[in-house]
């Protein structure tokens, strides 16, 4: 019967309000409920964790919440600057990891000998958790900044590298056979067949890596004192028992992580249009 009727939804400025409402209502209710329970628990003193309302009731936190752009020099900066500093580190290390990961991945995927030689090493290194890299990188690099960058890099590089290698190895035989029969040049093979074919795998790696590097930055910054960054910000707030600040930072971290993932998804959709 619905086939003969026009869509039931109310349209507003080209947006189907009914559908939007249906999509947004359940998560809204769930989040509200979650916040209410949290608030209830902290009001009833079951936990010492301040409730979500403390973001507004606590004065320091309120300042941080409403003035994300302040900068009093040193490490006393607004949340925006803190986050940006962390993001910059991620951007540098992640880009580096992407270049190294994709490059090495393709090399390994196309060269069975290399793959044989390096696979065990990579499988081993990949399982080392980001936090375990911190002391080593500190010891090796001696300075906070490069050590943080290194930790992010080493965390992000494995998923990219391994996925790329798999993607290259998994190029369907049919594509390779076509390439063999028409005897495509090396360069054309790379750009017209290898890269597009491995692209979905590479992007899977890139998406996993961006989440991981965002995880790693927090870990890296927590232990590296005296730098601007959201990780260290959390650590310091905890040290000073400003728990509601930690909560605020968590909200920031979560939101940035979500945005990063969505960005990669969008990028993937843009590049691989039609596939």
């Amino acid at each position, binding site marked *: 019967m619905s086939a003969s009727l026009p869509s039931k939804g109310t349209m507003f400025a080209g947006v189907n309000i009914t559908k939007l409402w249906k999509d947004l209502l359940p998560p809204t209710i769930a989040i509200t409920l979650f916040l209410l329970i949290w608030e209830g628990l902290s009001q009833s003193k079951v936990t010492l964790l301040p409730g979500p309302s403390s973001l507004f009731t606590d004065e320091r936190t309120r300042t941080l919440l409403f003035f994300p752009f302040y900068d009093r020099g040193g490490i006393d900066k607004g949340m925006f600057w803190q986050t940006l500093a962390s993001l910059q580190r991620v951007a540098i290390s992640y880009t580096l990891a992407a270049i190294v990961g994709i490059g090495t991945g393709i090399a390994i995927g196309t060269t069975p000998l290399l793959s044989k030689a390096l696979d065990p090493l990579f499988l081993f290194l990949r399982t080392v958790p980001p936090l375990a890299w911190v002391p080593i990188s500190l010891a090796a690099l001696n300075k906070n900044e490069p050590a943080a960058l290194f930790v992010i890099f080493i965390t992000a590089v494995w998923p990219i590298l391994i996925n790329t290698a798999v993607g290259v190895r998994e190029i369907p035989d049919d594509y390779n056979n076509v390439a063999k*029969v028409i005897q495509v040049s090396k360069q054309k093979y790379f750009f017209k067949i290898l890269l597009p074919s491995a*692209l979905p795998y590479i992007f899977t790696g890139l998406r996993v890596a961006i989440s991981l590097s965002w995880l790693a930055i927090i870990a890296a910054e927590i232990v590296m004192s005296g730098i601007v960054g959201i990780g260290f910000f959390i650590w310091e707030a905890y040290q000073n028992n400003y728990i509601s600040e930690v909560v605020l930072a968590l909200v920031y971290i979560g939101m940035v992580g979500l945005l990063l993932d969505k960005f990669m998804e969008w990028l993937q959709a843009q590049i691989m249009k039609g596939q």
Partner: protein
Amino acid sequence: MSEQFIHIENAEKTFPLGGGKEYNALKGINLSIKQGEFISLIGHSGCGKSTLLNMIAGLSLATGGLVQLEGMMVSGPGPDRMVVFQNYSLLPWLTVRDNVALAVDEVLTEKSPEERKEIVERYIKMVGLIGSIDKLPTEISGGMRQRVAIARALAIQPKVLLLDEPFGVLDALTRGKLQEQLTRICEETGVSAIMVTHEVDEAVLMSDRIVMLTNGPGSKVGGILEVDIPRPRKRLEAVRHPSYYQLRSEVIYFLNQQKQVKKMRARKVPVVSRHGLEKVNLEIGFVPLTACAPIAIAQEKGFFTKHGLDEVSLVRESSWRGIVDGLRNGFIDGAQMPSGMPLWMTLGGPGESTPIVSSLTMSRNGNAITLDRRFLEQGVHTLADFKKVLDASPEKPHRMGVVHPSSMHNLLLRYWLASAGIDPDKDLELKQIPPAQMAVDLKAGTIDGFCVGDPWNLRAEMEHTGFTIARDVDIWSGHPGKVLGCRADWAAAYPNTHIALTKALLDACQYCADPANAQEIREILARREYLGTPMEYIQLSPEANIAETEHQPIAHHVFAGEGVNRPSRTEHLWQMTQMARWGDVPFPRNWVEVLEATCQVGVFSTASRELGQTEISYIRNSIELVDGTKFSAEDPIAYLNSLEIKRDITMAEIPIGPGRKAA
């Protein structure tokens, strides 16, 4: 050999398996392909047909033998042998145009960019996809994608197009359309093509030749069929062509046979020896005809058991091909066969020589030549009348059915026609059709007549579709009909069993010859496991004819009597000359030796002596035939030379040694 376009000689392919073992996929493949031919490779899954295709493509090289294209060894893939893969293999990130252009730009480098662009568009237009030229493969249907793949393949102007089940994943309707389209394109461009398929109709519709591969391991070419349907072909016209169903059933027969071989290989029967006989568990093949009576009776009336063969099972085959293949592959121990077949198989009629021996003639006569009823209406009563009709309409093709090149039907029909100056190959077309299909084909009008054993003549007569123009007694009275045939190596390995088998069947022949038993025999033969046909079509011999029908007594099988069952070398020699005359087998230079090895009179004599029958002394009498000539065994070569209507006769030395070991 360089004039061959594609030449494959003794090619083989082995794949290494784990643990130092290897799998032999293809063995001893020989195939030559002419320029512009469309070849289909057909066989069961896993028979290595794709492997063979890949060998030609160079994607996976032969591990032994020769694979040549225009005299050059295939040493790797190349654009002169473009492949169309089953799952299209289009690059999904490139548009239709770019997919084709990728290939064209790489291969046709000597052309200017404008020319290449023009070529890309021309070939996309040829497959009717110019409207979708800028779409991605994901935006078009499976059938369209495969058309793009074909366009891509043709656009680079390969010497040969290699198609690996190109329509395998498409729905029936799309497949049909594409088959026709590809056929048309190949006809127009004249490109050679080799297609792997498992679709029988596809193969018959599209190919010039169908190459049938046997089951692996060690698959080989099991047979090659020429498809004589004229081009350009349209599906509906091709289906109506008289060869279509014959070819189709040939391929299906082959595939079924392969399936059986697989089953038989799976169950290896151990030899059971008992009662001083080397082997008592026998599989005896027969074709459901009235003349199979001795075999049916030996089984039903216990003659096999009487002579110690207490584990005999009968294998019913619908055509003589089944008997030939069963014996060649060693799946049956012995069989009823047309009297010319032992020599035909010995002389390499089926392709390679399988020495066969015969120790018993089981029936004589029982054949007739039937013509379509419409000839009767045209006033055809005699052979001379028939020749007049044929001469009056030379443009009209006339077809007649015979069951097997080695059968007496074929030889008698040809002899009869030739005696009136009709060339059986030039003035007529003789088709090989299984006995049971004759009456159906006559009714359908795809053949104008046939020569076959009963019950089929009688049946055509009684159903008013045909009439008997000549009986075998008019051509050669007392000609051998069906004989017992066993492999020479089998007979050598189980000599006592061979004698026991001869005795049992000789006993049965005598039982069949007694008119008192006729009614019982007819009842047995009418049963489903034998002929499965109404009793009124089954008549045994003139004496036994029970006047149930108003038709002339045309059934006149002779199962026993003086000199009936003894295998005769003169008769076998006559058949040898006739088969050589029509080019079915070479005439052996060592014909005396071949005859002596094939026609085992000694076994017959022992058998009949042991049955207590007085041995009639062997008289080498001559054979008298319809045209008044007498055939004697004195000088067969001079006889052959004296014949007017004949094909090119080849001579060959046929090695008659100890046969291959029994399987």
